Structures are given as structure tokens and as C-alpha cells.
């Protein structure tokens, strides 16, 4: 952990500094210097190397009138859709009607966490980026709000925050003038919950239309499911290798 200190003009480790400092000798620093704990213990810290987090969505099990996943996401991340064109939607329910046959279908659409994300390619500042575990995020610290990523995304997965926000969820900061989208509940993944808010909600309804897991772990339910049953990715013609796959569209 390198902290630049202006006084010495050189990078020194803060923990080294603490060890050498006499004034704070009384304090044990075994578990870092977090002062207060508000319940919950940080599990394995940092992202899981080699993982590729993904979702598998079974449109056949997703009733048209259910939007539990959408409400759960809105609550988890503190965004609100009041029906305006300027309101954010990290996840939405889309109703499909096959032109030839008239068969109707319904499914949720969110950021597909592309392996080759166009949003990342076009972002001028690198604010759009892909974590090593495949989750595509917007680093709001560097996003300048140019909306080029929204132009580039083939799935309308992103929203621009059009007005000042207050009282955000502490685990999901979001603010005016920056772009946002599904982050696969990265705070939950990092703390080891092993699921996302939408998947939890979907399972709670009993529909079980959504599954979350590590596509790269051959033992995981999701990897077994996609290797056993047919599933597709949206706009496969674009060759983006999506982290979200669908069944029974």
C-alpha cells in the first residue's frame, strides 16, 4: 500500500510509517486501521482471479407480469424509474412477440457484461472498464459524462444520471452527470454473497428464472447448466461474448 507523502517527496508505505511512528505505538494494527465496524466482516478481499461472473436467464420461466428483479435492483442500488425518459433503468423487463408465430415471451435485460465491451472500447477516459472477473463497470471518478458508451452499447444497458442525487445507497454511489448501469452487484460479490439482488429476488418469487455464478468454474451450477442445455447470447452476430446468457427466448 503506497501512499505518496508530500513531505518526503517519495513514496513510502503508510504501514511502515506507522511502525516507525512513536506517537501511535499503543495501537495494534493487525487488521488494518479500520476504526469502526458496522457489522459484517469483509470476507476474502479483492476480486476472484480467473472468475467470469455471469447470469443465466430462462425466459421460459419468467412471467410477463413479474418484475421482482427490477424492483430488487432499484432498491439495492437506489435508482428510481418514475416513467420519465430521463430516469435510469439498470434492468428492465422486455416483452417479445415473435413476428412469424406470434409467440410471446418476457425477459429481463441488463448490462450483458460483454467480454469485448464496445462501451469500454469507446470510452475516452477509460472510466468504462472490465474488471478481471469480467464485470463491466463505470468508474464514476473518471467518467466525464460524454455518453459515448451509451451510443456504443448494443443493449441500451446504460443510463445517464440527469439530475443531482442525494441519500444514495452507501454501497452503490451514483451522481449527476455520470453514466451508470448494472454492476452485477459488485459489492455483494466482493463481500462473498455469491449472488445478486435480482437473482435473490427472482428465486424468492419461486420462478427461478435467473441463475448467477462463475462461468469459468466448471463445478458451478451456471457452468454446468450452460454446458448441458442450449442457451444463446443476444446479438450473437456482434461477437461480443456476453456474460449474460438466455434460454428459451
Amino acid at each position, binding site marked *: 500500500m503506497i501512499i505518496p507523502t508530500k513531505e518526503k517527496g517519495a513514496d513510502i508505505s503508510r504501514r511502515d510509517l506507522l511502525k516507525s511512528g512513536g506517537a501511535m505505538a499503543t495501537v495494534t494494527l493487525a487488521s488494518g486501521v479500520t476504526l469502526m465496524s458496522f457489522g459484517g466482516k469483509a470476507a476474502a478481499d479483492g476480486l476472484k482471479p480467473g472468475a467470469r461472473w455471469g447470469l443465466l436467464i430462462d425466459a421460459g420461466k419468467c412471467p410477463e407480469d413479474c418484475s421482482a428483479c427490477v424492483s430488487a435492483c432499484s432498491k439495492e442500488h437506489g435508482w428510481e424509474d418514475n416513467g420519465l425518459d430521463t430516469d435510469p433503468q439498470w434492468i428492465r*423487463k422486455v416483452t417479445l412477440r415473435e413476428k412469424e408465430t406470434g409467440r410471446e415471451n418476457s425477459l429481463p435485460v441488463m448490462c450483458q457484461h460483454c467480454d469485448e465491451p464496445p462501451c469500454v472500447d469507446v470510452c475516452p477516459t477509460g472510466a468504462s472498464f472490465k474488471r478481471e472477473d469480467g464485470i463491466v463497470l463505470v468508474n464514476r471518478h473518471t467518467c466525464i459524462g460524454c455518453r459515448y458508451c451509451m451510443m456504443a452499447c448494443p443493449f441500451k444497458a446504460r443510463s445517464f444520471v440527469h439530475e443531482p442525487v442525494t441519500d444514495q445507497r452507501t454501497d452503490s454511489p451514483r451522481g449527476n452527470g455520470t453514466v451508470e448501469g448494472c454492476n452485477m452487484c459488485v459489492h455483494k460479490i466482493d463481500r462473498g454473497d455469491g449472488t445478486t439482488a435480482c437473482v435473490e429476488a427472482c428465486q424468492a418469487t419461486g420462478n427461478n428464472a435467473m441463475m448467477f455464478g462463475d462461468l469459468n468454474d466448471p463445478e458451478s451450477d451456471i457452468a454446468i447448466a450452460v454446458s448441458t442445455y442450449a442457451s444463446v447470447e443476444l446479438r450473437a452476430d456482434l461477437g461480443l461474448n456476453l456474460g449474460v446468457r438466455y434460454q428459451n427466448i
Partner: protein
Amino acid sequence: MERITYRELRSTPKVWGVMALCAAFVGAAGLSVLYIEHHGHIVTGMNNQVVWGLPHVFAIFLIVAASGALNVSSIGSVFGKMAYKPVARLANVLAVALLMGGLAVLVLDLGRPDRLVMAMYTYNFTSIFAWNILLYTGFMGVVAVYLYTLMARGVDPRALKAASLLAFVWRLALTTGTGSIFGWLVARTAYDSAIMAPMFIAMSFSFGMAMFMLVMILTTSITRRVYSPELRTRQARLLGVFVAAVMYFVIVHHLSNIYLAKKGAYESWILLNGGVYTKLFWIGQVLLGGIIPMFLLFHPKIDTRKSYVLLAALLVVLGGLAQLYVIVVGGQAFPLEIFPGFEVSSSFSDGVVNAYTPTLLELSLGLGGIALALMIAGLAMKFLRIVPENLSDDNVDPSLLAD
């Protein structure tokens, strides 16, 4: 035949009046920006479906016109049409001014313009957008050098030639880059086309020449200087050729789209039942921005009718704005195809044409960009020796004009 002399504009009420008018527009744009900054983009017409709106139309127009304006001077030095040389300085100044106006609009419309400087530290080199930033700043530098070689005394003509050639190549790259901003959006039916880049180059020739002629006519008439009718006519005919070239690319673009089955729906929408976009296309872009200017510019009496030239150049600018509106906004209004073969509906405007109604804020920001460009050019003309004083037919060598 006298030697061409360049002189600063004199301080006349008219000159300052035009400047004050420009300043008023720039001020209004500044207020709009502050208002948008404070309330967020919710006060504009832009939304989550149409994310780039009227400011981007103006910004892209100005940027494209900037590289085109430079062309006027390239014709003189790169292609050896010496008759154009007396206006080369103005062309260079105008190119930089237009680029600054366009970039100002683009930057001020960002969600977080305050972060722009910080964003420079975190460059993403795969982004065509980031490349464009380099192209734009480089353009200003190259043009500045070129202008210096034009204005300084005793510069080796070979240096002038080299600088002008570099500027010309750079401007081609710049327009290609601007066109590619759209060409790279593979997911959007309206944009995914290789013809976008050459079309933007043709557009830049046309818009840049039109802006140049407007500024030239305005400046010479308020300062009572002469704009050689001979040269004006040459440029007008050339503008006519550029307008025709743009029309040609537009036709090829649409025809090739119609040929591609997957783009048929988009084409029939934009050409036949796209509502305001269809009207803007046929009336704004094709009729006002194409057919009428061509008629005026190729008119046999064009050499004696300054008003025709003025009107045609104005129409080219308006038609250009209409064309960019159709490309930028129309391209986003058309529903994104996520599920081919399905009819779709959702709470997030899936499957429907997206609505966008620009507000006065966006318009004032866009017009402010044009005003800023004119103001910068005006100040340069006021304080530097840019505009020729005696550009009469007698002083333009007619033998050099012949192509």
C-alpha cells in the same frame, strides 16, 4: 497589379457591433451551461434514449467545417492555385476558430466538464474519441505553424509548402476521425457504415467553404474592403461542386443501405415515414441544403450576383445542420435492434421511435459555439494582419485563376 496588403480591421461601430452581437450569444450560451450544470441534463431535451442532441449537431458541424475552411488555403498552397493565396491567412484563422467553437460546445455539454483536465491523465488509447482529442489539439498546432509560415517574412517557400501539406494531411485525418465516431458504432443501424468517413470529408469541404465565404462576405462588406468578384465566383462554383459531392455520397450511402436487407427498415423509416427526420432530410438537407444551392451556384449569372452566393452559402450551412441532425439525432431515434425477428416493448422505449425535443438551452449552447468561433476569428482579424485590403479583380492574377 498591386501587391496584396493585409491590414488589421479598423475599429468601426459596425465591427464592434458584430462583435457585441457574438458576445451576447456567447454569454447566453454561458448562462445555459451554468443552468444545465446546476440542474443536471434533465432541463435539456436529451434523455437516456437520445443521448446526443442539438449541441452535438452544432459541435460536429463546427468541427467538420473547421477542417473544410482550412481547405481554402490548401487549395492555394498544396494545389498551387495561387489566386487563393491572399485568403489563406483568413482560412487558417477561421479553421482554428471554428474548431475552438465546436470543441467548446462539445466540452460544455459533458455531464462533468469540470473533470476534463483530470480525464487527460486517464487516456484510453483504444477510443476513437480520445484519438480525436489528439487530432484536434494537433490540428491547432499544425495550423498555427502553417499560419506562421504564411505571415512571417522571408520564410523559405519549401517550408511553406511542407507546412501546408502537413496541415492538409492532418485535416483529412481529423475529418476521418470525426466521421469514425459514428462509423464505429457497430450496434446502430444508422451509423455502421464505412462510407461515413469519406462522406464526412465531402461534408467538410462543403460546410467549410460555405462558412469561409459567409465570413468573407460579411467582413468585406462591413469594412468596405473588396472581395474580388472573380475569386468569389471561382469559390462559389467550387462550393457548388462540393455540394454535389456531398449529395453523391448521401445517395450512395442510402442506396447501399437499401441494398443491405438488415438496413431496409431504417431506410424506409428515414426516407419515408420518419416524421420530422424525413422532413428534415428531404426539405432541409436535400432541397434547401443541396438542390437550391447548386441551382444558385451554377447559375450563369453567379459572377454578378453576390446575393446568390450569400444565400447559397447560408443554405449550405442550414442544410448541413439539418443533415447532421438527421444523422446524429435521427440515428438514435430509430429503435435499436436487440432482438431481431421479434416485436419488442418495455418501459425503456424498446421497439419504439425515441422522442427528442430540443430546448432553448441546447439551441443557445449551439449558437453560442458558432458565435464564439466568429468572435475568435473577428478578434484575430481585428488585431492581426489577416484580411487583404485590396483584393480586387485587378490584383488577383486572372491567369492564375484558370483551372
